[in-house]
């Protein structure tokens, strides 16, 4: 997702904006990938109640 290989339109605006911005950060500095993954993981853990439909579509 962060590398932009998994196109997805999120139902929750913050999720779409976060992933999009993490992708831009990764393009600027690929070595930051572990840090960016931690950010998206923390976000998904906090907002899992709002992201159920997205998680289902993304990961089955």
């Amino acid at each position, binding site marked *: 997702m962060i590398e932009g290989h998994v196109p997805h339109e999120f139902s929750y605006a913050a*999720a779409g*904006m976060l992933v999009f*911005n993490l992708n*831009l950060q990764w393009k600027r500095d690929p070595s930051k990938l572990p840090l960016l993954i931690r950010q998206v993981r923390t976000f998904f853990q906090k907002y899992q109640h709002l992201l159920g439909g997205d998680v289902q579509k993304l990961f089955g």
Partner: protein
Amino acid sequence: MFASIEKVKELIVGKTPVIVAGDEALLRSLPAGNWMGGTIPYFMTPQGGQVSHTHVFVTEVPAFARGVHVATYDEQTISRIGVDSPENGYTILILPAFSGLHRRYALEAPSFEHLFLKVVAGWIAGTHLDDVGTIAPKVFAGPTGEMLDAKGVAMHIQLPREYQAKIGIVNTFEQGDGDEIQFPATGFEASECIVGGKRYKIGNYMAQAQLDIRLPLVANYNGTKCNVTIRTLDIPASKITFFAPVFEGVKYRHAKPVGDYAERFLAAIPHDIGEAVFCCNCVHNYTYGDLEGRHTGTLQGPMTFGEIAYQLLNQTLVHVTLSKRR
């Protein structure tokens, strides 16, 4: 609510935390207290869109809020806004337009720590459009009585555990069917663009494409449409400026024409959002959408020089709603 300044004074004296948008002279007359504000004379009110130098728009913090804290931020400290925002609650941030802080936030907020983990919304303070360049937009920190044109002010509102805050974005614009446009560098201005892998002088491209500059450029942030409003276009000098930055690597398309803005807007508001505890809309929607005297539903508030939904947006309505956890 759209109110007289006397009504706002009553609320402040009665210790109700409030966020106030209005004319500078009115905000200067308010007593110290648990409030913050920013200058802007454009509003969406129950009577429709209007310009007012006699009334303000006041947003009360819900009485059940656990804690309310007003803080100021400068260019060095603004990166803490996400960290400072409460774990459960929301933050409303007001920044003065055209300041260095406005610029820094616009360019760098997406990489601020914890920004997207928290609920950070707000707006950019402005002036009457006739006064741009002559009067500096201001923000006000009620607890200290400060009036600031280079710092921002935020209200951090902590909620009881059973409530959660959520930001909503209403964007009446969609990407059009025209070219995909990129820019070679991040910034508020550009002299070149990239279309179909080729670089063009922006003046030549815009002259050839004949784009209506009242319509924004729209990027798709994984499902969230983010607008960038065109501020000026100088075709002979090949220079375009924007009210929010364009970012290198982002693909923009010029927006589709909207038609009747008020009708389109009403159709775009979700019906199940509940009552908003905060709302702002863009002054360009007011002017380009010809909203003076026209209604856009129950979502009311100041019409501003930029909207904050985590990061800076343009030509967008931003609202915060609360819901009870199940």
